[in-house]
């Protein structure tokens, strides 16, 4: 037989780890590629974009993002402590740590939900029928503003003599904005070759939703999303200074939408729709992973987490660390870049 010549090879039926762990690592390697693709696409879209909003333009709060990072790191520690406890056959302690992880995961999702709803309130959605974000202040934008104003005004005027003081005040506000829309549209129609109309439309857009960062105004102007003449007007917006005093003209920044929350007019953020698509896709997929992890933790609470279940705790833990890992990259890329 040929066996007698060569060295004796012992047959290893599988990797020297439980099959469940092998499967989970295989799954994680597909997940690495899934998120590598998503993050790679984000980088191409973001740095290839003509204009990209500053974090504050799209109501991103960096401290909230940092807090969420901290929460996920804490939950990674608790899950690893649960694994150690399970290995020591301390089921109660392991369950305690898993409960803690579950709570921390819920805190993360809660913060995420708050962030999402805050953006939704201001009309920052990824899709047009619900989203109210426009890339530039063009005639489509002004048509959308006009439609929203008319939709608001019709029921108010229908009340006729029954209109309250509040209703009358609202009609006044609507008429005032409508005058500006009319003026801008007239300028576009009468002088199609002059930039006057676009300047008026952009000024209107910034009155409705002011820019939060001078840098993005300049960037948008360079990219041709807004007329350069606008930059001079908004150059008064403060740059971050060395001593950290950047909040000087807070009142000036209050837009029509902010003063009248019921108005909810369409807003113009250069690069905003693309930002919304990437942000909600990346954080949405990450949140789905968090939810799956939380379901796994919740189910684990119904079992005894002793030494015989240590592999289960380890596997779910590995998955959870991966979710933490993805957030480690998403936080700087989405909030701080």
């Amino acid at each position, binding site marked *: 037989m040929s066996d007698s010549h060569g060295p004796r090879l012992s047959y290893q039926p599988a990797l020297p780890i439980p099959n469940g762990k092998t499967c989970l690592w295989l799954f994680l390697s597909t997940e690495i590629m899934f998120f590598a693709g998503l993050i790679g696409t984000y980088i191409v879209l973001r*740095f290839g974009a003509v204009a990209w909003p500053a974090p504050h333009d799209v109501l991103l709060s960096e401290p909230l993002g*940092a807090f969420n990072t901290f929460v996920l790191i804490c939950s990674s520690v608790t899950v690893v402590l649960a694994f150690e406890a399970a290995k020591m056959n301390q089921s109660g302690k392991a369950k305690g740590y898993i409960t803690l992880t579950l709570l921390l995961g819920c805190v993360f999702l809660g913060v995420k939900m708050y962030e999402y709803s805050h953006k939704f309130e201001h009309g920052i959605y990824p899709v047009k029928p619900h989203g109210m974000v426009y890339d530039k202040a063009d005639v489509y934008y002004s048509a959308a503003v006009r439609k929203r104003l008319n939709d608001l005004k019709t029921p108010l005027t229908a009340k006729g003599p029954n209109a309250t003081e509040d209703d009358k005040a609202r009609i006044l506000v609507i008429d005032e904005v409508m005058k500006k829309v009319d003026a801008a549209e007239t300028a576009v129609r009468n002088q199609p070759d002059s930039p006057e109309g676009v300047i008026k439309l952009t000024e209107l857009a910034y009155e409705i939703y002011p820019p939060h960062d001078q840098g993005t105004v300049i960037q948008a102007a360079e990219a041709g999303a807004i007329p350069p003449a606008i930059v001079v007007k908004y150059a008064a917006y403060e740059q971050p200074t*060395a001593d950290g005093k950047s909040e000087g003209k807070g009142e000036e920044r209050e837009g029509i939408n902010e003063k009248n929350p019921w108005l909810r007019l369409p807003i113009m953020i250069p690069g905003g729709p693309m930002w919304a698509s990437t942000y909600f896709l990346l954080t949405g997929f990450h949140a789905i992973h968090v939810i799956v992890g939380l379901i796994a933790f919740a189910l684990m609470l119904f079992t005894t987490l002793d030494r015989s279940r240590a592999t289960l705790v380890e596997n779910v833990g590995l998955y959870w660390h991966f979710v933490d890992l993805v957030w*480690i990259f998403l936080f700087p890329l989405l909030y701080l870049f």
Partner: protein
Amino acid sequence: MSDHDQHTEVGHDSHDHAHHGGNGKYLLVFVALCLLTTGSFLTYFPFWRAHVPVPASRALMMAISCTKAMLVIMFFMHLLWEANWKWVLTIPATFMSVFLGLMLVPDVGWRINNGYARYSEERWVYAADPHKVEASDLKAAEKDLQREGAN
């Protein structure tokens, strides 16, 4: 990392490494992760943005993220103490995601810092504003010409 070599024997049972982790080590990693997060969060503050150029902060943030990722993978996911099977799963996955990233390089290269003159007509149709030749385009085109002249 110094004890790495002692624990890479083939066939090492993954359940039998209670002596590797130790809750003290986990807490140390936790503190390191928090400090690193604070490090990248510093870029948020105005005094940082006033003094450090954006590309430098971005490079720093990515370096910090990679360090944090390595800490999580090595200690929390126990890869530091696993037997050699770990390479079977991690190396192909790393290769494939690196290749995936590399495949995007042409896209990134053509779009970033390449001057608006290099934007394709098709892309301008979907950009924030239909393409009109403006001062910035001319400047970019000039720069391109100079670059080509220099070569």
